[in-house]
């Protein structure tokens, strides 16, 4: 019998094969033993342009192309290494200092080892992606050296050696090889510098004769060191010397195995941690096991988690359950006097003031005997995923003077209220005060009260338009950089001179209907440049009407899978700020070639219906077309034209037809149970610097022509949604609005019932619409709108999805009361519409350009789901950014007004939206803002500036404010009450409010 053993010794190649064996445990607890072959070789180049030996042995790819050598002949020098140097960073340096490596002036000629790259990818995928982007950029000169495959630098893990030690050793070995290799090929080789924050590793390197520096030591040797030093992560420092010292503020996290078993057994729960916008000490975690979110109260319970983190929580015993707080708590007001330097002296994680605030809660929960309302509380015992991102904020006033170059610790206060202050160390305090600053969180250890982070860059002076706009865009993750060249290369070469070909045999005309003779017009907001849609209506011989909605044919210009498509897909939507528009597509397309401007021929995608005079749709068809818009109206112009009895031309007649049809359509929709929702909307005309700024804040006027356009767009969207769903049952891109669970409305309906005796029926959208119509207060016409605004906030948000991921009954759009819905009508500013265009083009069998490769990507469900996810995210952020921009400008407008005419108070109507124990939230419709009113901001009779106190009736939603000892002269406010308020914009002392110009609201009288 022969042996089955392979004769390894006999194989001449055996020396070159090693195998990598490791054990890996999956999240599910499964353990796998992985065996991989590794072929060791000698032809992996050092990639230095100095080295001719490697150049001669470099291997070409399948197409015969040899990769270019990367590391420069004359690398930059520093004070310590005047002859130039190549850098070899280890993983921890990259983890903590990626921002530094992205600096354009420094960190060139870097060798990224395979060992390091692999470890980095294991630790952080986003950082890995950023590093890969660096390695691809030509001017940074980053070289990927696969040291594990070069026989000279491959390292085997020794017995008993930890994986970290092995990796450190392989970094040192690679550095040693580079040093000796370069010394052999050139006379004056550049110095190889290993960057590592690990002291032990540096010591060993020194012993082996390798230059090793910590990131901080290295940066100190660069010019511009002060600014760069601030960017060195604090976490990296922490690793060096300081072991956790004495005082531990926070409890330790559970071990991963304990968490996993806990979650499996159902004793621990996982969810996203959300901090209340009104009270920074109160957070909620929504876990799948319970209907209502769990409360997390206080710093100790939230245990170093930051809003947005995915956390694991443990339910606290029932005697610790509490009622959600009715207090307004701002970190600024409670902890104004923390000193960032004196961290170590602090007694406990909870300051006295915070303790007092929490005490109130407990007292209330007990005294009210409100066991019925007490909610389960929990504490955080572990963190599954950190959601740390770059944060924009300002430096808190520095206590003590910072002199010269000395490093000082300061607090950075993020704009986002829900995120705690961050301790950062800087040498440039004076420059940073009064600026908008981008920073990131590095770590939050048990022994620091606040997270530790580092400075990244400064955006500019507070309250300057540029800095504030950029801050806003960063905060909402809007991509605002100019379009890269690859994208611009995808534009038509004719530029603005592009025209619809005159020759109808041109390939561009293929499959298009010529609708140039139809009287089409567009109706948009004034000054609109990116005109997505145009309309027409004309009578048919049988008494019916033909109605057409023509949408800009963007898919004709944006072909699938090219760089422009990829960019548009990642941007997702155009973002409208008050003074700026961040386009999804380059200007040339958005405002010219695609835009359905009047008097020029444009490609369009048309939806044509035959409708009866009663607005019943007889039939619908879709076609790509060429149109020539006769007029571009604004809403007001269109309204005037329609109302003008002397205008009897054909275009006006068709607009009148459209208007009457749209009103009938709207009625039908309302009868079906569509909701008439409200959100506080104001419009700001910002360009006019000279005019009285306040007059420029306008509430959006609703004209009949607004709803004219809206109705037909809705009709087009619904018709298209039906069509694409029939052709792509699994992969149609649709939009749904889930019916909100009745529990969302519980608070509002209770409030309405107690305060006004109205019943809110939320059983269906029709019932809700009807009961909202009932909520009328004859003395306060705005009351109904207020309720609608509040009801809107109780609903879920609409989302894009791919038809295969939900069952057909769940396609429903709750707000519009439509069985199916999608977005088709704004392809210039929404990527979803563009995709829907492609799907529709395929569905109608359009054969023209751009459709050849579309097929595959339109049917790829996984890809489409990812796109939807991104679109939903971008869409939400764009809305938030737009709102924040308006808020900022309202503040600025008020400020300008105050500067111009000091003393002229702005007194307006306000409505109470929420009542807290120590303040109320007031909504001011005229400016579309809502603001907190604290006890101090109530104007009382006989004000003696004594300490304010209040009586809060949680069940009656009333708050009585009075000065200490003078209950009789108190002022009582209740929910939904109309108040006279004085609005002013003032700079608050807290750093958070700074620059944002929070509007201050003072209650004048009741």
């Amino acid at each position, binding site marked *: *019998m*022969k042996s*089955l053993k*392979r*004769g390894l010794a006999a*194989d001449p*190649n*055996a020396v070159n*094969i090693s*195998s990598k064996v490791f054990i890996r445990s999956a999240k599910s607890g*499964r353990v*796998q*033993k*992985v*065996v*991989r*072959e*590794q*072929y*060791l*070789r000698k032809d*992996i180049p050092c990639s230095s342009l100095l080295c001719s030996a490697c150049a001669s042995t470099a*291997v*070409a*790819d*399948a*197409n015969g192309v040899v*990769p270019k050598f990367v590391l420069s002949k004359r690398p930059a020098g520093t004070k310590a290494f005047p002859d130039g140097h190549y850098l070899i960073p280890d993983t921890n340096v990259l983890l903590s200092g990626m921002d530094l490596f992205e600096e354009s002036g420094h960190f060139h000629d870097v060798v990224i080892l*395979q060992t390091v*790259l*692999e470890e980095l*990818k*294991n630790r952080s*995928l986003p950082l890995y992606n950023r590093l*890969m982007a660096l*390695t*691809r950029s030509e001017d940074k000169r980053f070289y*990927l050296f*696969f040291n*594990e*495959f070069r026989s000279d630098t491959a390292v085997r893990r020794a017995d008993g050696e930890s994986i970290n030690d092995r990796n450190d050793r392989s970094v040192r070995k690679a550095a040693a090889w580079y040093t000796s290799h370069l010394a052999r090929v050139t006379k004056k080789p550049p110095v190889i510098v290993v960057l590592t924050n690990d002291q032990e590793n540096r010591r060993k390197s020194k012993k082996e004769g390798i230059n090793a520096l910590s990131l901080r030591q290295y940066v100190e040797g660069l010019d511009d060191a002060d600014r760069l030093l601030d960017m060195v992560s604090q976490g990296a420092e922490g690793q060096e010397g300081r072991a956790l010292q004495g005082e531990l503020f926070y409890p330790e996290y559970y071990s991963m195995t304990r968490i996993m078993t806990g979650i499996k057994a159902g004793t621990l729960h996982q969810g996203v941690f959300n901090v209340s916008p009104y009270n920074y000490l109160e957070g909620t975690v929504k876990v799948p096991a319970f209907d209502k979110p769990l409360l997390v109260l206080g710093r100790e319970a939230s245990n170093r988690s930051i809003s947005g983190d995915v956390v694991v929580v443990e339910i606290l015993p029932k005697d610790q359950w509490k009622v959600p707080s009715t207090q307004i708590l701002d970190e600024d007001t409670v902890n104004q006097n923390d000193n960032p330097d004196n961290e170590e002296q602090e007694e406990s994680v909870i300051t006295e003031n915070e303790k007092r605030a929490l005490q109130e809660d407990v007292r209330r929960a007990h005294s009210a005997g409100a066991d019925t309302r007490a909610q389960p509380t929990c504490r955080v015992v572990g963190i599954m995923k950190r959601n740390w991102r770059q944060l924009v904020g300002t430096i808190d006033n520095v206590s003590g003077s910072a002199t010269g170059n000395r490093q000082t610790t300061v607090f950075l206060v993020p704009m986002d209220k829900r995120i705690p202050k961050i301790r950062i160390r800087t040498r440039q305090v004076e420059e940073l005060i009064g600026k908008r600053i981008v920073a990131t969180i590095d770590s939050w250890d048990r022994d620091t009260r606040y997270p530790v982070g580092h400075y990244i860059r400064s955006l500019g002076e507070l309250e300057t338009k540029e800095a504030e706009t950029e801050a806003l865009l960063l905060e909402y993750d809007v991509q605002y950089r100019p379009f890269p060249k690859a994208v611009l290369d995808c534009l038509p070469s004719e530029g603005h001179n592009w025209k619809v070909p005159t020759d109808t045999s041109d390939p561009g005309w293929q499959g298009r209907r010529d609708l140039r003779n139809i009287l089409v017009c567009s109706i948009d907001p004034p000054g609109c440049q990116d005109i997505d849609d145009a309309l027409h209506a004309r009578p048919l011989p049988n008494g019916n009407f033909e109605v057409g909605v023509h949408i800009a044919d963007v898919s004709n210009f944006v072909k699938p*899978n*090219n760089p422009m498509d990829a960019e548009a897909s990642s941007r997702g939507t155009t973002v409208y700020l008050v003074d700026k528009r961040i386009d999804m597509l380059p200007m040339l397309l958005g405002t010219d070639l695609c835009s359905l401007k009047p008097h020029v021929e444009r490609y369009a995608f048309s939806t044509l219906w035959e409708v009866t005079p009663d607005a019943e749709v007889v039939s619908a068809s879709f076609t790509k077309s060429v149109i020539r818009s006769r007029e571009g109206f604004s809403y007001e112009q269109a309204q005037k034209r329609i109302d003008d009895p002397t205008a009897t031309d054909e275009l006006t007649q068709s607009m009148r037809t459209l208007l009457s049809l749209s009103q009938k359509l709207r009625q039908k929709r309302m009868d079906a149970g569509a909701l008439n929702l409200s959100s506080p909307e104001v419009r700001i005309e910002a360009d006019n610097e000279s005019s009285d700024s306040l007059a420029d804040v306008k509430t959006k006027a609703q004209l009949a022509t607004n709803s004219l356009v809206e109705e037909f767009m809705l009709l087009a969207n619904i018709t298209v949604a039906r069509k694409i769903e029939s052709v792509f049952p699994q992969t149609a891109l649709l939009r749904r609005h889930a019916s909100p669970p009745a529990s969302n409305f519980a608070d509002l309906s209770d409030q309405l019932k107690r305060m006004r005796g109205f019943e809110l029926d939320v059983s269906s959208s029709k019932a809700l619409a009807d009961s909202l119509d009932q909520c009328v207060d004859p003395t306060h016409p705005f009351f109904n709108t207020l309720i609608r605004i509040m009801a809107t906030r109780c609903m879920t948000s609409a989302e894009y999805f791919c038809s295969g991921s939900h069952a057909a009954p769940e396609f429903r759009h709750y707000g519009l009361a439509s069985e199916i819905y999608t977005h088709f009508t704004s392809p210039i500013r929404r990527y979803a519409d563009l995709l829907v265009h492609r799907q529709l083009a395929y569905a109608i069998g359009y054969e023209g350009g751009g459709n050849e*490769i579309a097929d*595959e*990507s339109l049917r790829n469900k996984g890809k489409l789901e990812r796109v939807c996810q991104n679109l939903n995210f971008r869409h939400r952020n764009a809305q938030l950014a737009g709102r924040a921009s308006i808020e900022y400008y309202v503040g600025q407008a008020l400020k300008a007004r105050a500067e111009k005419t000091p003393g002229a108070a702005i007194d307006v109507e306000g409505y109470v939206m929420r009542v807290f124990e120590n303040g109320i939230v007031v909504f001011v419709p005229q400016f579309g803002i809502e603001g907190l009113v604290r006890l101090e901001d109530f104007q009382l009779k006989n004000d003696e500036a004594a300490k304010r106190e209040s009586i809060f009736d949680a069940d009656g939603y009333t708050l009585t404010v009075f000065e200490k000892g003078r209950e009789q002269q108190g002022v009582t406010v209740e929910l939904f009450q109309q108040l006279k308020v004085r609005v002013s914009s003032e700079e608050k002392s807290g750093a958070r409010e700074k620059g944002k110009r929070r509007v201050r609201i003072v209650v004048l009288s009741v």
Partner: protein
Amino acid sequence: MPLDTISTYAQTLLRQDGRRWNELRRITASISTQPSSDGSSLLTMGNTMVLCTVTGPREGNRRGQRDNTNATVETEINVASFAQMDRRRRVRNDKRIQELQSTVSSAFQSHLFTHLYPRSTISISLHVLSLDGALLVACLNAASLALVDAGIPMPSILAAISSGSVTPTDDSSTRPEPILDLNNVEEQELPFLSIATVSGHPGSEDKVSVLTMESRCQIGGANSKLESMMATGVDGCKQVRRKMEDVIRKHGAKVLQGRK
């Protein structure tokens, strides 16, 4: 997450196990490993190991399926439950395995001189002891060697290899980057095909006898990935055939020495 080929290949031109695009894994083989069978072989390609035994030609046991003019080739593939990282229980009537079996059978049915053995059966039995990609390829190669060992006449040695393509994205503008002999990790990540050729008459080109592809891949167009994969694969088959011929010659020399 471990590194992947696509993101780093363009810069390093190295695959995840340190090979270049046109390098095979180490192939070792021996024949006549199982004296009890008519022909046998043990073949390894990297960490994939396949044991093959051939029985026959012998009188077919199933009357109904007997072919009056040719021998029938039957194949049975058995992937050991310990062959991969996760211990897998064998599923009976695994459709994938059945398809592989019929692929191997039909490849040899048309390749061997079956007309010399009418009304008889040649059974190929393949045992996959360890699997790291290239399942079909290793089975074809092992069977090829075992059939030689069994002394069944054939015009040339059938040799197989897999080839794949590294391309950054779906877009068709980049030039294709073919790679040869994928291991399991690469098979998970990249589109690949399995190809087998038989050498033609001296002077004429090799002929493709097996070609299967189960992944999505651009076929037409200017930078066709399929074409480059096939061209690379045909070259790879030549390399494999040379190695197999070496094994056979060495074995033959040993046998002759034993006779003396």
